């Protein structure tokens, strides 16, 4: 290499330097643009959901003076539980509304007036009276939830400048509500109903407790089944199994299973757990079994990766001081691999939490009012609840849907945060 050539190379390099820098700059710019775009989408999604869902955490209540005399309720002296359950609480509420607005005489107007109070108001009264039967004959001042349309008027979702025909909330109703607001008989409060009740067809009475419990029960079954089975499988395949055609076949199949569409697991669950083992439909135990089939491959794959990442020197050292193979695995390898395994498990669980398709086949996409308390009670899960509310005609369910999405997201964030925390806490670097 002579001096002349060397100079040429330097010149060539210098000449292309600008281009190379530009190329790097462009690449960084693309990366930045991609991240900005995805963050913008995420922000838009979160903001719209929050903006729509936040009003659902507050509920409008109306104060009424309800007289619970036995004549209006249609119960005798000393009524028993069944009589109290069937009593005409709605009649008592209607009566108190007509005494509040004695000028309302026409049938149609009366009907409009009754719509101010939620249809669920009578159940609130029923609950109070059944808890304390001595209330029959008393006059109570109670706060009852307002109807769906009244609620959206108070929230400002109904444009009163539209012609009356195009509004669900009519002129006379606006007049009554404005007067009640002036008299401080209408209040916005925290919507505890949303967290205390199961599903309902009245948006103001609908809650997520049922589906939240359903999700928890289902995930509990999934975790209890899939975690030990998956970890045991991973340990066996990684540490003990001989490398031959059979283990290769098993490995390929596990990888394939991870990619199977989730609805297939639903069909499998229907055929095996419900039709063969006669387990009840719509039960969290079946949901949990199906979802653990689905999450098993995910956890196995991540657990194997975590076991593989433990340096062989640790195994060798343990074997060197005389530990048995089993001791090596359980005293040294598994504890070191645990953070990775837990991360994989939580990601698998988060996936299971968001699933609806396999649950359709086993009857968990259903209208269930009672909050499930055991593994065999009919139940539904959060994503199913969201899907069902999004499909209903009542406008009040729009905000409930968004609110339920917020709860689901909060659930997911907590799970992912736990994954990050566990990883940070137990992570070892070599």
């Amino acid at each position, binding site marked *: 290499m002579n001096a002349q050539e060397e100079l040429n190379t330097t010149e060539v390099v210098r000449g292309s330097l600008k281009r190379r820098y530009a190329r790097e700059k462009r690449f960084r710019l693309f990366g930045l643009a991609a991240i900005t775009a995805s963050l913008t989408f995420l922000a838009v999604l979160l903001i719209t959901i929050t903006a729509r869902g936040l009003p659902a955490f507050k509920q409008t209540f109306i104060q009424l003076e309800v007289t619970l005399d036995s004549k209006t309720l249609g119960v005798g002296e000393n009524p028993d539980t069944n009589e109290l359950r069937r009593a005409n609480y709605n009649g008592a509420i209607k009566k108190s509304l007509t005494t509040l607005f004695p000028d309302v005489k026409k049938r149609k107007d009366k009907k409009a007036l009754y719509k101010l109070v939620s249809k669920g108001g009578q159940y609130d009264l029923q609950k109070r009276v059944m808890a304390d039967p001595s209330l029959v004959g008393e006059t109570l001042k109670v706060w009852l939830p307002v109807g769906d349309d009244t609620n959206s008027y108070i929230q400002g979702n109904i444009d009163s400048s539209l012609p009356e025909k195009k509004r669900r909330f009519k002129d006379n109703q606006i007049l009554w509500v404005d007067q009640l607001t002036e008299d401080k008989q209408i209040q916005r409060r925290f919507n505890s109903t949303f967290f205390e009740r199961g599903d309902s*067809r009245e948006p103001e009475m609908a809650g997520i407790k049922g589906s939240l419990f359903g999700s928890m029960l289902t995930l509990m079954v999934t975790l209890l089944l899939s975690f030990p089975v998956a970890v045991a499988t991973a340990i066996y395949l990684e540490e003990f199994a001989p490398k031959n055609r059979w283990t290769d076949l098993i490995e390929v199949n596990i990888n394939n299973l991870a990619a199977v569409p989730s609805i297939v697991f639903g069909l499998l669950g229907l055929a095996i757990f419900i039709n063969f083992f006669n*387990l009840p439909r719509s039960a969290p135990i079946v949901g949990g079994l199906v979802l653990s089939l689905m999450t098993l491959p995910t956890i196995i794959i991540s657990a194997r990766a975590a076991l593989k990442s433990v340096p062989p020197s640790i195994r060798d050292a343990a074997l060197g001081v005389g530990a048995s193979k089993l001791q090596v695995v359980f005293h040294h390898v598994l504890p070191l691999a645990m953070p990775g395994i837990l991360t994989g498990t939580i990601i698998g669980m988060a996936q299971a939490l968001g699933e609806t398709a396999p649950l359709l086949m086993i009857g968990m996409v259903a*209208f269930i009012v009672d909050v499930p308390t055991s593994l065999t009670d009919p139940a539904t899960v959060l994503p199913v609840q969201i899907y069902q509310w999004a*499909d209903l*005609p009542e406008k009040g369910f729009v905000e409930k849907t968004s609110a339920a999405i917020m709860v689901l997201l909060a659930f997911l964030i907590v799970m992912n945060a736990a994954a990050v925390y566990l990883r940070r806490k137990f992570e070892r670097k070599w």
Partner: protein
Amino acid sequence: MSKIGLTIAGMLLCTTVGAQSARDQISIVGSSTVYPFATVVAERFGQTSQYKTPKIESTGSGGGMKLFCNGIGVQHPDITNSSRRIKKGEFESCKANGVTDIIEVLIGFDGITLANSVDSDQLEMSRKDIFLALAKQVPDPNGGDELIDNPYEDWSDVNPELPEIKIEVIGPPPTSGTRDAFVELAMEGGCKDIESIAAIEKTDKDSFKEICHTVREDGAFIEAGENDNLIVQKLEANPDALGIFGFSFLEQNSDLVQPTYIDGFEPTFESISDGSYPVSRPLYFYVKKAHIGVIPGIAEYLLEFTSEGSWGEEGYLADKGMIPLDEDTRLSSAESIANFETMTLD
């Protein structure tokens, strides 16, 4: 290896322990169209009776019928909802599986509406216009009986009285019962008003059905998924488009959308219940007589559903947008249902 074996054994154990014994809750499956109405009744029934609230799965009419006809026993549903009458084949398969005594309940009607945004003009058209605008093949507008691919682009091409806007109809996919009913009632109805096609019906029923039921695929009909709320939102964003959805969604969104007059009638409570509005379908549910008295509460549920306070003109189902039957039919069928009279299919 033993650990895996143990866990599998544990799994089997848990499944057998949890096996189903008696059921104390009514299990209902079926149509997603009846679902919003049946759930209201179920919720009320659960609140006001000593029985548990029935569980209602939304599986679609066909899927529900299949589950329902699978047999008698606690693992099979007691009631199925349907947005059409039970088919002969389904009835036979029910019988073959031992479900012989079925109580049929016609509960009311559901109107299917064609609507657009309130920001544009309210339209008025006939079922023939709907067929010509939406069918895949229509008679040649230049004369002759030959069928050609649908050439119409604007509504005014179909009928000069309609405005000059592009034909754009947003509707549910073929898997939806609403779509089936719309095609059957609106398009087939319009089909019959065209002489050359009506003549085919007499000679070749199958090809008549194919002509009348096939919706064009060149972009004028947009499939928007099963969610009716989504269709309403799309209409709000696009004032030129028309949408197909159930009457209860029209009622809830009267500030956003307005219905199209079909054959001179606006879809209202009255026009649907007296049958003058042509696009409405019956809603049914079917009960296994063998389960009454075995699963607690079925008889009481039937009573609640068929009470005036529920399916009557002033009942709470009407508040939710279901169109009630006329009074005489209600009274007579409530009586036959109270006696658990079973159905026959002729």
